[in-house]
């Protein structure tokens, strides 16, 4: 099927991607081209391969046992499209540029401050002052600064679910990624907190290329600039802004799927 979004300057090109775990195919012949145009949302029933497709982009699938892949993935890194599996690309460097936030907030069992400082210390060569400036910057970016500035030394686990998820987002942003992969980032949060995170994502789309997995039609409609519908490891539909805005298309599509 012809992609609805035409690729004049794509930032992500996937060609004939197959991924299998322990011989069981999870992604089959994925072809995809993404260009700027807002948040890309992957939508589909569970088991349709959304998360695997997301993890293919930061090569996180490789850390799961029995992983087998074929096909090409190109991402725009340092201004030009680069094949992410070529040997010159360091996988840890790739993951810094393609940041990821998980379904459940996964703060480290340490202080709020250290949650942000430690990754910076381990993967960048910023000095202490630069690191501290950076964490203030990202905490402001996710609107958490005013809530935590007085208690940076306290344990991150005392924060609420929504705060923890924003902290995880800040931790990823602190590494200055170009891409943000979000795996159902509001799945474990209540309605109101989800709304706040969605508003935040809409702000962040100005500065980052965001690809998110979602299982909520409401959420997809609200944040997506492009929706990719998946089923059984294949992309079955792609919708651009007009398709999303059309009141019939999406519900009809999902009714067919679920």
């Amino acid at each position: 099927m012809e992609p609805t979004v035409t690729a004049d300057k794509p930032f992500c090109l996937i060609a004939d991607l197959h991924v299998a775990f322990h011989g069981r195919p999870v992604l089959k012949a994925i072809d995809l081209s993404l260009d700027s145009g807002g948040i890309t949302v992957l939508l589909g029933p569970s088991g349709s391969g959304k998360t695997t497709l997301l993890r293919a982009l930061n090569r996180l699938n490789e850390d799961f046992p029995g992983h087998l892949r074929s096909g090409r993935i190109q991402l725009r890194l340092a201004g030009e499209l680069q094949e992410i599996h070529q040997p010159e690309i360091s996988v840890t460097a790739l993951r810094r540029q393609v940041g990821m936030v998980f379904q459940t907030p996964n703060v480290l069992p340490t202080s709020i401050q250290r949650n942000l400082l430690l990754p910076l210390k381990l993967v960048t060569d910023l000095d202490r002052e630069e690191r501290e400036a950076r964490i203030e910057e990202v905490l402001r970016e996710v609107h958490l600064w005013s809530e935590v500035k007085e208690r940076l030394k306290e344990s991150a686990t005392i924060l609420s679910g929504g705060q923890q998820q924003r902290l995880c987002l800040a931790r990823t942003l602190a590494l200055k990624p170009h891409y943000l992969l979000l795996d159902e980032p509001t799945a474990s949060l209540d309605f109101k907190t989800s709304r706040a995170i969605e508003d935040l994502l809409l702000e962040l789309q100005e500065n980052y290329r965001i690809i998110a997995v979602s299982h909520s039609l409401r959420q997809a409609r609200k944040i997506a600039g492009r929706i990719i519908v998946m089923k059984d490891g294949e992309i079955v539909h792609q919708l651009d802004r007009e398709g999303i805005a059309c009141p019939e298309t999406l519900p009809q599509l999902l009714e067919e799927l679920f």
Partner: protein
Amino acid sequence: MLNRNSGKRDFTAGGRLTSPAGRIHFPGELLLRSAALFSALIIFALFGFLAYFSLPLFIEGRLGELFSLHWRPFQGQFGILPMIVGTLLLALSALALAYPLGLGICLFIHGLGPALLARPLLLLVQGMTGIPTVVYGFVSVFLLVPLLRNLFAHGSGFSLLAALLTLALLILPTIVLLIHSQLGQVVPALRLTATALGIARERELLYISLPASSYGLLAAAILGFGRAVGDTLIALMVAGNAARIPDSAFDSIRTLTAHIALVVSTDSQSTTYQSLFAGGLILFLTTAAINLLLHRIKSRACPSGDGS
């Protein structure tokens, strides 16, 4: 917060075999309770027995004699200080050798080494727990002791060094298995997070997982030390058993445990026999202190109740 942790907590709360009132109801209850009571009584009886027999030493003000440097039973001197020093020297040095080694093995298993070798290495260490202590002692007497004797040309080879090398091997599995089980809980939860942040595996282990495993790290040191203090056979077989404070690692030492075993096997009538009870009491209290300490650390590391 609530969402994230509730699943885990519900499981723990629902996993207890208790009814809301907190009482356990099943047919063998009485039997189990009596068994528990009986075991507790034995421990108290043991303590009472040791205290009762060593009491004369404390009452008659002969503590000075007890903690003297000289063990000359035929001249009425029965100081056990050399044995206490020997025990501490041996246990601490064996721990100092085995602990870094054990930690290294655990880090190797959890990702510093090739995954292909991790499992065989773990199986080897687990297998080591099944080897009877006497085998270590025996092999040491025939291989290690002559080697040390020839290598350093100092004394008989039966020495602190021989004992600490053998004992380190004995306590290694205790240390490895404790740290390993702690890392096994901590690493899976943190590794994916760290990996997704572009943190290399070795850095994740050293800077994230290891600091999060402090309870296991401490417990391994304390239990390893306890195991080393409590072991009798290694010291008895290869340390040489000279009742004096050693000048170097090549000198012979005698530990409290070996001392008790030696005296009991040769003499059970003389008055010096009382000093053994004092030695036994010291060992008993050391073990009790180690267990209490461990309990304290554990309750601090994993507070009961629902925490927040």
